[in-house]
């Protein structure tokens, strides 16, 4: 579990470098990505992949908005990097792989799962962005900026 958290953190930091995130935000991006993945791992033991992905997305978006408000910078910085581990890159691969192997039932299952994960991420992002900005302001003293 700790190994996974570290891998997710450093993976996220690597991608924030590729997205040219300013250097001072690297640790925070890593933290967002790592925490999101941790929630995904914990909940996937009890709740299935799609629901845990939804919960993890909510955590990532919440943390991103919180950090953006606290540090007065665009929320995009934390969100784009932090959500990266959850984007179903592996799903794309398995769908293609099973299709080629002519294992169509597995391919369909993986394809649908990838699609459902996509929808879970959509819902997570949409829900947490519905929270009013004041909700984040109250917890911080600095001025808001999202």
């Amino acid at each position, binding site marked *: 579990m700790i*190994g*996974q958290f570290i*891998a*997710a953190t*450093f*993976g996220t*930091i*690597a*991608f*924030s*470098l*590729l*997205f*040219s*995130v*300013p250097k001072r935000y690297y640790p925070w991006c890593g933290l967002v990505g790592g925490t999101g*993945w941790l929630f995904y791992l914990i909940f996937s033991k009890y709740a299935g992949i799609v629901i845990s992905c939804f919960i993890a997305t909510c955590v990532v978006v919440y943390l991103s908005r919180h950090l953006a408000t606290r540090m*007065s*910078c*665009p929320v*995009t*910085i934390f*969100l*784009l990097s932090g*959500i*990266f*581990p959850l*984007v179903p*890159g*592996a799903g*794309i*691969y*398995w*769908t*293609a*792989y099973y*299709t*080629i192997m002519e294992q169509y039932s597995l391919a369909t299952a993986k394809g649908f799962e990838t699609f459902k994960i*996509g929808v879970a*991420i*959509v819902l997570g*992002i*949409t829900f947490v*962005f519905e929270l009013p900005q004041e909700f984040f302001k109250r917890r911080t003293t600095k001025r808001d*900026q999202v």
Partner: protein
Amino acid sequence: MEGNEGLDAAALAGRILLQNGAEIFRVEETIERIAKSYGLEGNSSFVLSSGIFITEEKDDKHFYANVKHIPLSTAHLDKVAAVNQLSREIETGKYTPGEAIEELHKIQNMPENPKVAQVIAAGVGSGCFAYLFGGSIFDSLTAFLVGGLLWVFLGIMSRRKKRMTKIMLNLSGGMFSTTLSILAYRLGMGDNLNHIIIGSIIPLVPGVAFTNAIRDISNEDYISGIVRLVDALLIAFCIALGVGIVITVYHKVMGGIG
């Protein structure tokens, strides 16, 4: 023509934001904020994922119009953050329009991360994700190598004289990673070919386009959202196709993943 310069600044700021991975509503908001702080109240802007249209009217007369085509490109979030910061400072009256444009040009020319750092980051990203998706340490070391080389490949391809289309770039990227992964696996590096390939294609995965598409759609910027979503899905499809072509050939020639 003080007003024109203020609007030029607003248009340029919008352009930098849009080019570097900002959401549509942020672009519109920034343009409006900059225009307003230069006292231009009759301003209206219309932003799509591929273009910005700005007009300004005063006393029922149009006196400014600006249409810019902006191609989809990669994210540079440092520029988004810098423009965001600048627009707040403009709001407090810190810059004249001329100075603001100068600052914006500076932001536009901000240096990229050095190529070597990018290659290493792509490798580290690939390695970490190979591990996250169930690979062993050896898988992730191999993915590190392949992911790094993939970034070198992408760099060379996008620098060619005749610009490669996005479809071709991702298709060939997928094929390149898969081929290298198979080679490395055949040479005895790594334990599970699938995990190596998954890790090494991660730098291609359209996470930014996908996330921005969702945000645009949920902000009711449907046209831009759909365009970005199509962009993301097309890239994902191309990667899958690239991987698929190579694996098919591999199976026909070698008789399967051993």
